[in-house]
């Protein structure tokens, strides 16, 4: 703390919580400098650890009165730098607000605090045969509060939608200190969808204190097939045929050769040899429906000229298929010291063209690029491999990432399907939205946060950029706990 008035603010802040839940030592703060976007580091001036909703409200009102910037943080898994601290600001960690305050199996809803871990909701619902559908790959560690802030996705978005489609209502403290309650326990709402507006605000509106989510009955049966193809085109054509058939699979995923190589090395996944692409399709529902749909799917796949198709014979084989798929990201870390992952979206029909371009550009720029993507909804996940110890490599990788994002916009898609804009993609917002549109969004932000103290520096292009440093694997990534998608 350099300046005396800031020290005085910190001293007053320290008075709001017991000493054990107020951190300002460099060693303590270091753990909060980055999130899942490890290239960026900013040290906050303090980290506070509220345990109740009342404490969060008190802290936000303090920040508002003092014009002190704050960043709310759950488990810090954001891939877009969404929970990157702000210079001169504090971090409010919400992990201790981790109570499931209500679970009503008849109405099929749960009311949870923001620090509840995504899978803990499904675990709590499981005894009643219910689940919480949104399943980002970091679901064993990411929090519902973070999912709400960034409208997180997962592998089942085409059929089930994103986080926003499962949030029925919420209570939040806005950056002005106002406490609001939007929506409610009903699955239907009346009036403007304030809940829908709040979800995906990237922390710019305030902090969700309590979130009502809908639960769905767990599908009775799954049918998961892995099909290998000689070319990416063939895999893409198979997806088109599935979509055209009128089937609505829960998930349709494609992994390319480099991703397959990585998964094989990492978890000893076994794929049909000689394949340039592997397609994973999953049907789900009542057993009779899955059986009938399966006959249609088998016929489509048989006609798609695969090298081999391997239906999962039991739950264990299904898990193995998904393990290979979900490990692809951290597995790529074994092939390369560093990588960048993007989550741009293109119209599904242009996936083949997008992949060809990515391939051409990466060859031209001398970078390797692995592709794993949600083929059903056109959500790409190119993993650009590079070696950060070689001068200029990071910049080159960023340049390729930028070309891919601009391609997504030119094709009529989006710069982000599920990771959010955050710090990482804020400079691309003007490519996707006009000045008037960005101005409209800024005006909206000002309605919730006129002082611009809630997670400033995210979503909107900024003059000053935080220090970009060497990418590297997140510690949890190295441990295989999370992966970047």
């Amino acid at each position: 703390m350099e300046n005396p008035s800031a020290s005085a603010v910190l001293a007053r802040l320290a008075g709001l919580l017991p000493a054990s839940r107020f951190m300002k030592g460099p060693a303590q703060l270091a753990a909060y400098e980055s999130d899942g976007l490890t290239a960026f580091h900013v040290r906050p001036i303090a980290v506070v650890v509220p345990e109740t909703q009342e404490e969060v409200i008190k802290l936000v009102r303090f920040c508002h009165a003092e014009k002190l910037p704050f960043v709310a943080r759950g488990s810090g898994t954001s891939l877009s730098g969404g929970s990157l601290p702000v210079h001169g600001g504090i971090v409010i960690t919400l992990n201790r607000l981790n109570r499931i305050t209500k679970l009503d199996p008849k109405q099929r809803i749960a009311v949870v605090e923001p620090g509840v871990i995504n899978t803990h909701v499904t675990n709590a619902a499981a005894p009643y045969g219910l689940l919480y559908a949104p399943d980002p790959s970091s679901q064993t560690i990411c929090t519902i509060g973070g999912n709400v802030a960034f409208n997180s996705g997962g592998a089942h978005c085409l059929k089930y939608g994103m986080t926003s489609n499962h949030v029925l209502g919420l209570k939040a403290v806005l950056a002005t200190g106002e406490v609001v309650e939007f929506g409610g326990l009903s699955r239907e709402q009346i009036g403007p969808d304030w809940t829908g507006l709040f979800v995906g605000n990237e922390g710019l509106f305030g902090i969700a204190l309590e979130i009502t989510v809908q639960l769905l009955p767990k599908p009775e049966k799954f049918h998961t097939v892995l099909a290998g193809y000689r070319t990416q085109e063939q895999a893409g054509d198979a997806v088109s045929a599935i979509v055209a058939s009128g089937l609505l699979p829960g998930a349709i995923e494609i992994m390319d050769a480099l991703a397959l190589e990585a998964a094989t090395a990492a978890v000893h996944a076994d794929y049909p040899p000689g394949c340039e692409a592997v397609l994973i399709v999953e049907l789900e529902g009542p057993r009779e429906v899955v059986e009938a749909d399966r006959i249609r799917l088998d016929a489509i796949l048989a006609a798609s000229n695969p090298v081999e198709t391997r239906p999962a014979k039991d739950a264990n084989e299904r898990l193995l298929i998904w393990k290979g798929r979900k490990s692809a990201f951290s597995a790529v870390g074994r092939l390369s010291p560093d990588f960048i992952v993007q989550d741009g979206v293109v119209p599904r029909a242009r996936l083949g063209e997008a992949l060809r371009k990515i391939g051409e550009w990466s060859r031209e720029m001398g970078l390797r690029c692995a592709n794993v993507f949600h083929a059903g909804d056109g959500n790409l996940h190119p993993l650009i491999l590079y070696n950060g110890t070689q001068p200029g490599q990071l910049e080159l990788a960023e340049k390729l990432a930028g070309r891919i994002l601009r391609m997504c916009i030119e094709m009529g898609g989006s710069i982000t399907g599920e990771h959010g804009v955050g710090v990482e993609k804020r400079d691309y917002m003007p490519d996707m939205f006009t000045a008037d549109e960005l101005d409209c969004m800024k005006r909206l932000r000002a309605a919730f946060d006129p002082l611009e103290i809630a997670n400033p520096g995210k979503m909107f292009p900024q003059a000053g950029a935080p220090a970009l440093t060497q990418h590297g694997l997140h510690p949890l990534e190295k441990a295989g706990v999370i992966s970047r998608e």
Partner: protein
Amino acid sequence: MTTKTEATLNPTSIGELADAVRSAPRIVVTGAGTKPRLAPTSGNFTRLCTSQLRGIVEYDPSEFTFTALAGTPVRDIVAALGEKGQNLPFDPLLVEAGATLGGTVSAGLSGPGRFRFGGLRDFILGVRFVDGTGRLLRMGGKVVKNAAGFDLPKFFVGSVGRFGALGEITFKVFPRPLTTRTLRLAAKDVTAMAEIFATAGNSRWEIDALEASPAEGQVYARLAGPGEALEVIAREVLGRLPGAVLADAEAAALWRRVGNLGWAHDGGTLIKIALTPSELPGFTVLAAGVSGARTWIGAGGNVAWLSLPDGATLPALRWPALTLRGSAPLWCGTAPRFEVMRGVKTALDPQNRFPGLDE
């Protein structure tokens, strides 16, 4: 070009829509007029009608998306999707009456199919709209997955034209199920109904729609999927819950009546209420206290409809509620108001060109 009849603006393109909005200090947007209460009944407004702002702009079945102008009758969209074996799974209401896509979004109305995959809010992807300053803006996207920027498309669902004039809307669609089966399940009272909702909703059956008529003492459950599978599931449902499978013609007539709100009074007051199945007994007691009141329960007990004959007195509603027709207040139940709501109105409509939220 924009024509002006009886002081009504009738833009025929998005550009004309922006000009029309800028042309008058106070504007109220209307569509086919199937939900007349949504337009304010007082105040000095110039009417802007979207009936000429119609047409499907883009529809690529392989993308599972379409984009249409706000004044497009939903009927046209349903027909175009049907030709390609697709649909809007939330079953938009008042389609036969001529409801427009923009009006359906503004009213935030979803039909029986919202039970399985969600309501209109879960299928809207993007909008082009004119804000209160007359700027034409695009928010959201045209692909099925997008997380860039604030989710204004969702916000417009149910916002009754108070924050901007919708010009063009993009939706996600789904393949239409191969077949459907409708079951009639007996429910002697609303408590029994709520039990059926819970049992059916938590089952392995993946019920497609779950509606109920308190007057008829019946719950209507629709199954959707491959025919051979539905035969087996229907038998299992009827093994647990007493009832019968409706003949195809009977089922078609039922869903048509539900979609047209044909059970309600022709005139009178029509109100949509959001609640939970456990609140249904309270709702029916309240409705029973009004002479001539008719009710319908939708989306597995999360929506209650109340239709009152002309002249009936509206009871005090303890739930959020919206009046679609009749003279009751627009928000005729609980409507919590927060300071930020005024701020958002100012952000999108600083000169208060469109009606206020409570106007």
